[in-house]
């Protein structure tokens, strides 16, 4: 029982990260109809910038945290402006290849600038674990989950209640109609990418003290792809998907073998895409051709 609770804690922690990255993915997809295969690299950049600002530049933690979020948001907008705008009329394969290449560029730029060694981010929180009813929880885990909840709630409030948020939802649903209604679709694109960059940097900074910061850490985004696929690329469903993927992989990791842990996420992708590609939570009628 205690083991299961421990697994649960682990799953909720990691699931929050997957959910954050996954929501970033879905925001971009719903607004611009393209999957950002460089999402993981944005996460990685968030972690690296955060370390640079707090360790090398020596800024206070809170300042470097917020500054990193803003910087990566700007990077996201820059990507949108330079790459995605030009690919708006291109075939799907080209956009996929483009974001893929972008990921390669970002990753290797980081390797060139920082070197291929791993860095470890000094934890900015007290590091002694807390015992909560039989399970050991680290303060970092609680911080991750707490921040995720707050950010998610804020995000959904933003999307549902503010003018800009509703504009984004409208443009996601029907770009032409939104434009006709006076919504600046270009601004929606830019905002989606900025939000996505923000969320990725957040995930990266939450993750940095837990994992080693290395150029390949962006590979975690594949789990978020699973989450987004499970969620059918819908926003709340992707969050649930993130937790489901995390739970599944931790269960597999503990009760089967650790080696299969990553494979669980891949298996999920393939199975869900085969059985129910619109996501587990969507009730749409599929196009059967």
């Amino acid at each position, binding site marked *: 029982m205690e083991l299961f609770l421990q697994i649960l804690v682990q799953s909720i922690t990691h699931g929050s990260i997957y959910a954050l990255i996954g929501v970033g993915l879905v925001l971009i*997809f719903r607004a611009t109809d*393209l*999957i950002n*295969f460089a999402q993981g690299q944005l996460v990685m950049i968030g972690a690296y910038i955060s370390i640079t600002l707090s360790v090398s530049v020596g800024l206070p933690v809170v300042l470097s945290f917020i500054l990193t979020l803003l910087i990566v948001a700007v990077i996201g907008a820059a990507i949108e402006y330079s*790459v995605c705008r*030009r*690919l708006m009329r*291109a075939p*799907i*394969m*080209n956009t*996929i*290849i*483009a974001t*893929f*290449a*972008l*990921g*390669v*560029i970002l*990753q*290797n*730029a980081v*390797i*060139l600038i920082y070197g*291929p060694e791993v860095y470890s981010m000094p934890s900015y929180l007290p590091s002694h674990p807390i015992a909560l009813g039989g399970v050991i929880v680290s303060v970092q885990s609680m911080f991750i989950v707490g921040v995720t909840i707050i950010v998610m709630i804020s995000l959904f409030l933003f999307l549902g209640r503010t003018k800009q948020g509703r504009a984004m939802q409208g443009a996601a649903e029907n770009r032409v109609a939104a434009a006709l209604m006076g919504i600046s679709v270009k601004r929606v694109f830019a905002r989606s990418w900025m939000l996505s960059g923000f969320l990725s940097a957040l995930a990266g900074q939450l993750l940095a003290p837990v994992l080693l910061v290395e150029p390949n850490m962006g*590979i975690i985004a*594949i789990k978020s*792809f*699973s989450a987004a*696929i499970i969620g059918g690329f819908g926003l709340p469903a992707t969050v649930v998907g993130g937790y489901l993927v995390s739970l599944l992989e931790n269960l597999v990791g503990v009760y089967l073998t650790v*080696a299969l842990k*990553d*494979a669980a*996420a*891949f*298996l999920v*992708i*393939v199975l869900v*895409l*085969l059985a129910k*590609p619109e996501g587990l939570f969507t009730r749409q009628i599929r196009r059967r*051709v």
Partner: protein
Amino acid sequence: MAAAVVSLGVLALIIPTLADYTIYILNIIMIYSILAMGLNLVMGYAGQISLVNGAFFGIGAYASTLCVTAVGFSIVPSMLIAGIFTAMCGVVIGFPALRLSGHYLAMATLAANQAIQLVLTHWHSVTQGMHGLNHPTVSIYRWELTSNHRTFWLILAVTSALFVISHNIVNSHVGRGFTAVRDSEIAAEVFGIRRSMYKTLAFSLSGMYGGVAGSLYAVVVGYIHPSSFGLLEAVNHLAMLVLGGMGTLTGPIFGAVILIVLPELITGLAGFRALVTGVLILLFIIFVPQGVAGVLRQLVETRLARMPPSERKAEEERP
């Protein structure tokens, strides 16, 4: 035909004079052009996004090496077995392709690539995992392939054969079926082109090409390791297609040449090479998506279009 014999003769004269490293590069270029040809069939002609090619490369390399070391076959049967085995894997991978397209297919093949790399890394009993596998020097009948110069001829033969095969496929009803599926699945189905069959065939062909390339790679490099067959490898294959030109016969070859030669011209760290590859892919996919071969084709077509009709007919009828 005469041209082929002449060029073969010329090669026979030139090759022995070239330096070992040059020959090694030529071998690698040919191996990568095989990979690119296979990927071109599935992506350029059949229009199916396939990010799993790196894994096919790896499966072929391991299958062939195991045939040579564990079973004791010589290189040619091992290569054939590796090709067939990887083709079968291609069929399995192609199965999800029947129901997926676009982004979903990209993600599924990406996941498959990672999963296969995981299997290669962790299946110690078969693949020795992170230790890698050594590939011994092989021989064809009595002719020992002890040097790059000797291996060159084997690779040249295989590459030429596969090029001829891909040329024949593209110009046959199979190739036309591929492009039909690419351009409009529904219309193709209406015309009686069973897209499930053609999609599966496309994936299995890319598997076969990848498998054969992997087998030759193991011979040339002598040591294989799971880390060489992951996402970065799939990106390289993609780069070859984008740079060289998808959907053309010569595109893969141009792509392979560019991909292998360019880093040789830029001396620097390995990270710099990968960065340049990424930048090139991005620039090309935005500004020159048809690739080098596509640009050449456009130049030829522009030249043809400018001629008066009588000369144009004469040009077009030249073989």
